[in-house]
């Protein structure tokens, strides 16, 4: 009896170990893992909310309907940071996706390490995609060496102001319009702040402050082509930062820390407790669920010069992919007219392909926001932050100090000095 128990235990143990060690590539475990039927399987890693995921699923379904040689396996991460971690662990585990979708501010650390396969040559010889069909402003940040196209953007979004039109009407205020000034924005925010409603909601982050710094004539880095330090301590940069901080400290028109921590600003806008909310196009699918009030979009208020900041993510091919030809074929579809139309219909993207951006798919005023032309008008005014290897870490460190200063009503000059000092060593780090 005891011997039988031992035998059974041994067999069960071996079965468990065998199951644990087996690899079926079920969850897209390998870059390319044979095929489904006769098709080659490639994996595509992206992140997004439910509506975005649906869009990518639609793109994949349309692609697979259009051809039968390639099967695309979708992998999703919840949000930006999880995407970075999933991708880095996949690379470390020698099982990277063939394609991933990533923001220009984050892809640099992968490109710096040679993990991304540049697509310049493929783009040049493609009969489907042509570089001149895309917005240059979106394409440039995805040239990691400054010359050759590393990734291709699906998106040419920017920071804009979403406003609650009903609140403006109730307060007898003119709606935000192109060319409106910072002073009007502030005045409106003050008048709209009453009870549990705040006039303006904006996350205290470097990329939110950057367009106002530029608009004021200041700089975010010392040299945009080859940055060696943040330049937030310059006079004009500090001035713009102080204006930004004053939204909370001096005027109280933006929610305090405990309110912002209790509920994301986006949710507060949805509930009608924030009158103006600054974000990019990515929130539109969620905002389209609003039924209680009318809302629309306006460009950023102008301090001195009209400016906004690029928000863009791109399809990138991993250097370790074993099926780069197939991956490129999918990229051509996803970034071509049909793929970009599918993405645009969700409201999530400002298409990087001019023909789709200028079409009714994106501009139809019956789709909210009705004033989508704002995003296209912004494109010539867009500036980008650097895409160097350590940029993600630099931003994270800067954001920590900026957030602390914003909510503690600190002096912008002091915060700027601290940010510059603490991030300095990161620029010097050899990532190449």
């Amino acid at each position, binding site marked *: 009896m005891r011997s039988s128990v031992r035998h059974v235990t041994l067999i069960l143990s071996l079965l468990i170990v065998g199951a644990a060690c087996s690899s079926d590539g079920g969850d897209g475990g390998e870059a390319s893992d044979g095929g489904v039927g006769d098709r080659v399987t490639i994996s595509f890693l992206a992140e997004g909310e439910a509506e975005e995921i649906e869009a990518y699923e639609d793109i994949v379904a349309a692609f697979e309907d259009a051809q039968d040689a390639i099967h695309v396996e979708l992998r999703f991460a919840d949000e930006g*940071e999880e995407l*970075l971690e999933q991708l880095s662990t996949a690379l*470390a585990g020698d099982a990277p996706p063939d394609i991933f979708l990533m923001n220009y501010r984050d892809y640099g650390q992968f490109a710096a*390490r040679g993990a991304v396969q540049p697509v310049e040559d493929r783009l040049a010889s493609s009969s489907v995609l042509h570089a001149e069909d895309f917005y240059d402003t979106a394409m440039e940040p995805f040239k990691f060496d400054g010359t050759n196209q590393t990734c291709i953007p699906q998106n040419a979004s920017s920071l804009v102001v979403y406003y609650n039109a009903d609140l403006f009407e109730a307060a007898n205020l003119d709606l935000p319009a192109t060319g409106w000034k910072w002073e009007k924005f502030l005045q409106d925010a003050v008048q709209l702040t009453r009870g549990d409603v705040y006039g303006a909601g904006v996350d205290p982050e470097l990329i939110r402050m950057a367009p106002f710094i530029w608009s004021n004539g200041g700089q975010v880095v010392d040299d945009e082509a080859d940055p060696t330090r943040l330049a937030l301590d310059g006079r004009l940069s500090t001035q713009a930062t102080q204006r930004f901080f004053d939204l909370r400290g001096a005027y109280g028109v933006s929610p305090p820390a*405990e309110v912002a921590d209790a509920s994301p600003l986006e949710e507060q806008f949805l509930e009608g407790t924030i009158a103006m909310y600054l974000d990019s196009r990515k929130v539109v699918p969620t905002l389209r669920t609003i039924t209680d009030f009318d809302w629309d979009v306006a460009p950023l208020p102008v301090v001195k010069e009209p400016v906004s900041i690029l928000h863009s993510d791109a399809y990138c091919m991993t250097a370790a992919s074993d099926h780069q030809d197939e991956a490129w074929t999918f990229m051509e579809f996803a970034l071509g007219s049909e793929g970009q139309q599918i993405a645009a219909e969700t409201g999530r993207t400002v298409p990087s392909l001019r023909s789709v951006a200028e079409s009714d798919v994106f501009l139809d005023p019956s789709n909210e926001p009705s004033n989508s032309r704002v995003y296209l008008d912004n494109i010539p005014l867009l500036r980008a932050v650097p895409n160097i290897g350590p940029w993600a870490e630099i931003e994270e460190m800067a954001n*920590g100090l900026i*957030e602390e200063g914003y909510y503690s009503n600190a002096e912008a000059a002091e915060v700027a000095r601290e940010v510059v000092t603490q991030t300095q060593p990161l620029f010097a780090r050899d990532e190449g």
Partner: protein
Amino acid sequence: MAAPFLLGVAILVVLPALLTFAMSLFRWDLVRDPSFLGLDNFRELLHDVNFRAAMRNSLIYLAIAVPVRLVLAVGLALLLQPRLIGGAAARGAVFLPAVIPDVAYALLWLWILNPLYGPLNLALAALGLPTPAWLSAGGPARWGVIMMGVFQLGETFLVAFAARRLVPARLYELAAEQGAGPWSRMWRVTLPLMLPTLLLLLLRDTALSLQATFVPALLVTEGGPPPNATLYLPLFVYRNAFSYFRYGYAAAATVWVFALTASIVWLQYRVVRRFRAEWI
């Protein structure tokens, strides 16, 4: 008999530890070939503002959470010894947080600690007490993480409970016959006989506490409120490895954690041994 266990320890603990020590001497992003740096990673850590913050936060957590958890666990173990009505349910309630998956537990606390809508602040407000900004202010955020750790005392409680059960009842009868009161019996009978177990729990808890902050810091406070109010060593290691691709640097930080744990555990062992030698 111990061979399978030792084999498992060798493969799953010793080997990864040795590889980590080796990795700490290199710059390696797991994409390009590693390059030997010697002790440069350790030197850089000493000047890293984030590492110093993580070290400080971890030591503070250790200094507060470990004794609080131990005292509470032992106290509850002694309190719930007698067979009382509802005693089993109470013991179950004490143990329950320890078996909830870490992620679910963290998400529960994210709701509990919500400064406006969380039940904790709502209860405090109803009692007319101050309502800390748990997720927005540094001090309250650290206390929030400590609270999360303290409530997961189930395993410590269980071991202490069992250790108390092993104390022969005869000894209490003898002590009572000699006129020893309840406090005296606890100090002279219960605690000394439980001491080996308590020492084990102290050492174990110390080692685990240096890692236990990872999920709360990652999911609940995200290392903030900024800058670095709840950045602990495990989160520092995780970020450097998986967010910044600095595996060698993260490995060096892990070596520091190992050294810190070993030092503290050794110190505790020496102190308790001396205390025991003087007392017993």
